[in-house]
């Protein structure tokens, strides 16, 4: 009984400490890279107002799987008992989405793309283990990058 309680509290403390540290670090990196890749506009509209003569188009995508920490998962399942906004998952999804966009932009950059159109997202939760003891979300962002043809300039 005491042993279980101690293990539980230790896991909570570890989850809180490491989870918070990882989240802060991730946000710092996201914000820095967003500034860097700011010159590649990413928009959700379908039609590119350019003719196909000067540009090639190519599918670009970025995906990420991020896991929730012990503390947050526990807080989230407490929240599902009471109801209301599940704040534990908000930052998780926000991070996952922005990371996926960044990876997509990096993909576009590596292909020489200037702008990404028609962005779409796929979100899926991946639960594994006995009674969903491993919880994580996958976000995939994909769109079409316009790539300036070589020699067109």
């Amino acid at each position, binding site marked *: *009984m*005491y042993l279980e309680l101690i293990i*539980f509290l230790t896991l909570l403390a570890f989850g*809180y400490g490491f989870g*918070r540290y990882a989240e802060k670090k991730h946000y710092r990196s996201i*914000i820095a890279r*967003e*500034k860097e890749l*700011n*010159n*590649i*506009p*990413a*928009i959700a509209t379908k039609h590119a*107002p*350019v*003719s196909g*003569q*000067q540009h090639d188009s190519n599918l670009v995508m970025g995906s990420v799987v991020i896991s929730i920490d012990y*503390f*947050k*998962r*526990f*807080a989230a*399942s*407490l*929240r*599902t*008992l*009471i109801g209301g*906004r599940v*704040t*534990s998952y*908000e*930052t998780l*999804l*926000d991070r996952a989405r922005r990371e996926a966009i960044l990876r997509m932009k990096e993909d576009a950059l590596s292909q020489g793309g*200037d*702008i990404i159109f028609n962005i779409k997202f796929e979100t899926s939760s991946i639960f594994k283990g*006995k*009674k*969903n*003891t491993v919880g994580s979300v996958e976000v995939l962002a994909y769109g079409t990058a316009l790539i*300036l043809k070589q020699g067109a*300039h």
Partner: protein
Amino acid sequence: MALPSFLSKELIKLEYSNPEIPEGINTSKEHPLKEFLLLVAGVLSSIAILILLLVLLSDFIVGYIPFSWEKKLSAPFTSTEKSIKHTDNTTLINNYLQKMAARITVAQNLPEDMTIKIHYLDRPSVNAFATLGGNVFFFRGLLEKLPNENALAMVMAHEIAHIKFRHPIQSLGRGVLAGLALSIVSSSAGDAIMENFISEAGILTILKFNRDMERDSDKAALGSLVSIYGHIKGADDLFLVLQQENKNSEPYEFFSTHPLTENRISNIRNQSRQSAASETTSITPLPNDFKRWLQSEKSEPDSGSDETDPAEINI
């Protein structure tokens, strides 16, 4: 042919910009620890309230179950007649215990139909328990350790008080109702950690009611000791025996079905100091042959399991 100017790279850049979006729109600003503490407090108190309501409901329903039903129901499960070798000594012990039970029954003013049946079990555990239908079980291990008749009367009065207050069936009812509710709630929580958390929280709440039962029974038992012997001296000897037995292994009261043995002892001592009992009151010894009756029975090896079900309430 020259391309229209709006297709040039520079113009695309001009028309398509990517302004920085401020942080914190898609996330909540509340500090996670604060929210966590509120959630834990909220969930724990709602579980406690749920259990409290179910206990009240169960006690209300149990109040309508006549004792005779309880007796009929429990009859097939509590018959020890066949499993016990009837030697002279077991008969002597049984007679002695039954006689003692009769005195306590009178002292506690048990209703007419509430009959007590004492069973003696030849096993080494230091324990005794009361269960459905007015059945009280004594283990050899406990009887061997008791130093005097007052301590024995204390155990028996305590168990009989459980039966008087109908604790075995209350405890069964609470177990069934609360267990059902907890399993429904925890199964829809859908998370292994949460399931454990909910059932532990529920169990800890039920334990609080168990301890109250024990306190009530201790109180009633002391009352009957006063009416039989005129004092409560020797009652604490029972708990000294238990303390000796559970040395170092007693959990905190919060995690236990019973109040701390230490507290039960000091409770008895306080009461004995308050009462006018003088130093001259003496402790009644056990019958001379009592130890001999128990000694000769030690042939059978221990085969009992330590599993208890909610309707069995030990000391």
